[in-house]
């Protein structure tokens, strides 16, 4: 009898601690709700026949929506075009942002250098705001309706340049000086000595660039005319909007999943890398 009291008390305290923990997690749970709801419904809708969805029923499992979505757009081609665009662009960007970051790391600024600001200001002048003038330029160059035209406005990237600049600034001075003494040219220093050291920054930039451009919609909408040159977001948008008949919800959900799947898979596999990359890309890393 005497022994059971402290036990009960301990149990009570444990319970209280548990309730406390749960309470402290409550905001997180509440916060998760809308996101869970949206994601959950997308999944449910994708596997439910549209007729049932329209009656507000869920349940009967089907893969038909995916089969139809796959048949409704040339997905292999859409994936291929998107991959060509984002990886091709990334390849060019690796060159431009590394060189630019390297140059910026050496500019002694403190507010006087116009070049520094010229690059920095691009953060505020996103290409999507410039669709009209950039379309006219691309048109003048005879490049409308090409995947290369999609990439052009993004070749120079202030985000990338400043990310890399930070990487370069972290490299110890002595290392550079030693290389200089050895008679290396700046190009050799950049490619042989520095590049391996900024790999984390480069990787972070690569991830952000891939995600951002994978999801790109407005600029491709302006530039691409031929259906066979479409990227995923365009292919999807054209069947998410109805012209004459009713909305096929199941199909739209299945299409959304097909479009997002590669990125979602990559995200689930490399979650930490994604989160770090995005956190860094905010300039203040």
């Amino acid at each position, binding site marked *: 009898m005497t022994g059971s009291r402290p036990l009960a008390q301990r149990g009570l305290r444990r319970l209280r601690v548990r309730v406390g923990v749960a309470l402290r997690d409550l905001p997180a749970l509440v916060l998760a709700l809308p996101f869970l709801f949206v994601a959950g419904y997308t999944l449910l809708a994708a596997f439910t026949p549209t007729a049932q969805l329209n009656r507000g029923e869920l349940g009967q499992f089907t893969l038909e929506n995916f089969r139809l979505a796959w048949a409704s757009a040339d997905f292999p081609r859409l994936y291929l075009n998107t991959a060509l665009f984002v990886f091709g662009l990334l390849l060019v960007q690796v060159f431009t942002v590394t060189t630019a970051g390297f140059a910026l790391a050496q500019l002694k600024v403190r507010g006087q250098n116009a070049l520094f600001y010229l690059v920095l200001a691009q953060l505020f002048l996103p290409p999507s705001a410039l669709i009209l003038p950039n379309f006219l330029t691309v048109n003048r160059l005879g490049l409308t309706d090409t995947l290369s035209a999609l990439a052009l406005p993004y070749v120079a990237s202030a985000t990338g340049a400043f990310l890399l600049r930070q990487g370069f600034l972290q490299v110890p001075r002595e290392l550079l000086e030693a290389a200089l003494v050895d008679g290396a040219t700046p190009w050799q220093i950049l490619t042989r000595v520095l590049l391996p050291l900024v790999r984390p920054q480069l990787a972070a930039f690569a991830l952000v660039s891939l995600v951002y451009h994978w999801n790109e919609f407005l600029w491709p909408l302006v530039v691409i005319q031929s259906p066979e040159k479409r990227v995923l977001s365009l292919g999807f948008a*054209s069947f998410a909007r109805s012209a004459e008949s009713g909305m096929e919800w199941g199909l739209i959900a299945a299409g959304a999943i097909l479009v997002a799947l590669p990125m979602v898979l990559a995200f689930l596999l490399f979650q930490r890398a994604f989160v770090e990359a995005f956190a860094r890309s905010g300039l203040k890393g």
Partner: protein
Amino acid sequence: MLRLAAAVLTALGLALGQQTVITFYYPVGVAGPLARFIEGYVRDFERQNPGIRVNTVFGGNYEENQAKVVAAIKAGNPPDTAILLSQQLYTLLSLDAIEPFDPYLAKDPELKRAVQDFFPAFMMNSTLDGKVYSLPFQRSTPILYYNKEAFREAGLDPERPPTTWDELVEYAKRLTKRDAQGRVVRYGVAIPTEDRSTWLLEGLVIQAGGLLYDPAGRGCKVLVDTEPVRKAMQFKADLARKHGVSPEGVIAWGTTPGDFAAGKVAMIYHSTGSLGFIRNNARFPFGTAFQPKLVRYGVPTGGANFYLFKGSDPGKREATLRFIKFMTSPELQARWSIDSGYVAARRSSWNLPLMREYVRQWPQALTAREQLAYAKAELPVYNLQQVKDIIAEAEQAVVLGRKEVREATREAQRRVDEALRPFCR
């Protein structure tokens, strides 16, 4: 995998100079099952014409498809053929982008027969100054769909749909059902207000005795500030705001067939092209009927036609024509109609055994054909999209009660005239 193989074969064929590849670019809005049918037709065509390979692609919805084609023309890179709204004739002419079919009609008796066999209503938007500029493919008219079960429940005769606007309102009142708290569980009627189209409004205007344009105006005279247009807009607004038989606000085009199929609305105005969707989704018997009249029956025709673009090479043009003939043949139009609900555009399609059997099973499909006798051409005008946007916005403002109808039509008329000025001097 198959597609990849097909692409490789195409490339091989091209290298050997054996195959002509044409791109067929169609705007069947929501992909859905329609895509599968079209793919099937194209397979059949290719089987019959081994020298031709057809590259089929969704072009997006009508507006999007149009914008893309115009952009391609402006960039000096026109397609061989495209399916665009029949009412785009003037816009395409103003770009000097299309050619008439007449030279080919003279040489090709099959094509000539086709032109004579299309329903005249579907050719109204195709001809100008005696020349044929486009051939019908996916054509439709708006009709009235109604829920027979709901009719029975409300004590209405399911074989007697409303025939006048007044009757429509009266029926809708009886069909509107509320629960114990007074919330509506079923609306009587829904007439969508489309985002960027004037199609359904045009029907109401015709029924009110008017027409949204002057047929002699050569694409330059739009008649918005007129009594029939005002009556049409007011009628639509009153359904919700005065009679309470229709959902409030702007009713979305895309969700309306779903609402109907789910039994939440007892009558809807929608395209015949939605017949397939409703057949597959509704679990109650439904009927189709002419849209009720105020002073006369009438609807605009709708949908899209094949156009021929300038600057296509002769080999491709030949292949394209062959493809167009196939897609507009009586047999294929019948199949397409049965599969989708679009109206078979050839009169002879309706005599085929296939079609007779279908109509016996689904007499609902006949409504659209019979209504064609009262159909008018759909608004044909220069600068089409901007004109439609202006009118649609005025209509929305009236439906939402934001504007008094007289003010809305007057302002829309002024803006439409302004939008047409650069094209019409």
